[in-house]
């Protein structure tokens, strides 16, 4: 049985992630103890919250260093979800510019609505909240058994801008188009919440557990 660490930043809903991973047949532990990461097969970095506060929490607990060490040096697969995906980037700009984990060469930027109606008001509201399509650009084990353009649940105001376009596995049409799944080697991120995306979300998490 796969052992999965779900990283607790103290700022977000880890309960539903724990439940979802448990449903996928893995043994998971919710932890803020960096030494736990050496004992698991995979890491899930969930996320709600603001980038700077979450990075501070990861730095203070020693988690940031432990994640990078285990993922980079010991090749432990990691899945970042929503803010967790953004934390994988080199830099974030929510509230203030903050260095991220640097596991994906990318910056995190605010979504900018690019359509306006006749009154000049944005038609694409921000935050981007709700179910939207995920269009694959490349094949990925994460998307096994998931049809193209499946709707997943999003709730975010920021998005990841990859330096290397090859890291973008899937995109979602909103504010132009943004990266909704990224991957580099064994580092994965989804901007949407698979743990809140009903059956297809469960399928994606199972794909990660089964890697």
């Amino acid at each position, binding site marked *: 049985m796969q052992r999965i660490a779900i990283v607790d930043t103290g700022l977000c809903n880890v309960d539903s992630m724990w439940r979802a991973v448990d449903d996928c047949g893995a043994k998971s532990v919710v932890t803020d103890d960096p030494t736990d990461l050496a004992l698991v097969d995979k890491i899930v970095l969930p996320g709600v*919250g603001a980038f700077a506060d979450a990075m501070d929490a990861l730095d203070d607990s020693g988690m940031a260093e432990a994640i990078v060490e285990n993922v980079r040096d010991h090749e432990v697969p990691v899945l970042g979800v929503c803010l967790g995906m953004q934390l994988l980037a080199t830099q974030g700009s*929510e509230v203030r510019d903050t260095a991220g984990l640097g596991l994906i060469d990318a910056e995190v930027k605010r979504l900018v609505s690019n359509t306006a109606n006749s009154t000049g008001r944005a038609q694409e509201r921000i935050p981007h909240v709700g179910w*939207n399509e995920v269009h694959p650009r490349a094949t990925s084990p994460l998307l096994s058994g998931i049809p193209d353009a499946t709707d997943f649940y999003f709730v975010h*105001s920021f998005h990841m801008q990859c330096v290397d376009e090859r890291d973008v596995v899937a995109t979602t049409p909103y504010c132009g188009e943004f990266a909704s799944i990224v991957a580099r080697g064994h580092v994965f991120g989804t901007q949407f919440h698979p743990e*809140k995306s009903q059956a297809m979300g469960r399928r994606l998490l199972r794909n990660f557990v089964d890697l």
Partner: protein
Amino acid sequence: MLKLRVIPTILSKGFTLVKGERFDGARAVGSPMQAVQVYNLRDVDELCFFDIAATSEGRGPDLALIDELADKCQMPLTVGGGVHSVDDVRALLAVGADKVAVGSGQFDNPSLVRSASERFGAQCVVAVIDVWRGGNADGVPTVWSHNATRDTGFDPVEWATDVAAMGAGEIVLQSVDHDGMMDGYDLAVLAAVTSAVDVPVIASGGAGTFEHMVDAVRIGGASAVAAAAMFHFTQHTPAEARRHLAAAGIATRS
């Protein structure tokens, strides 16, 4: 493209699921857990759970109950009722709420939305705005708090603009006049608010037919439509609502 969300609202008073009319005379109709399980099976887009007795009973959110409900939710869950501090928000997120709704709490603690938004991100802070025309002799809609017992005097558009600027990532716009009446949303207030703010607005209070939902989107500019009585007491289901909206040319989850 982003889909229009259809959101069942669960109104709870302690351990009981209730139906109200114009924020008054709530009667018991079942258990919240039952409702959550049914909606989970029905694959709904999202759920709102409002504990309408918390503020009037002077207590905070029922964390044990929310913890249980959230464990069963494979879809996003917004929780409101009795949220008066950043600690309340933190505690609700910790037991499994995805978004926390702030209503009366913002009037008692004017820094609440801003502090919660800075700490946890705008995406999980939802402002609930209760609008009542009938409470004013001249029928002018104003924002009411504490279960529509206090007139704050705020104009709905002014208040919506304020809470969005403070960092609310979403607004639930509730009509007290239409609450539980199933006679349609307050489209005029809805349209005024959606054209004044950039954040998504959830229409709430008054849904009785699928056409009401189409109107909330077409005329009101809503990003999501919530309904309580319509789903709990008629044969209508959220899936049928999504199909009806899709047939009217509004993208929904299939």
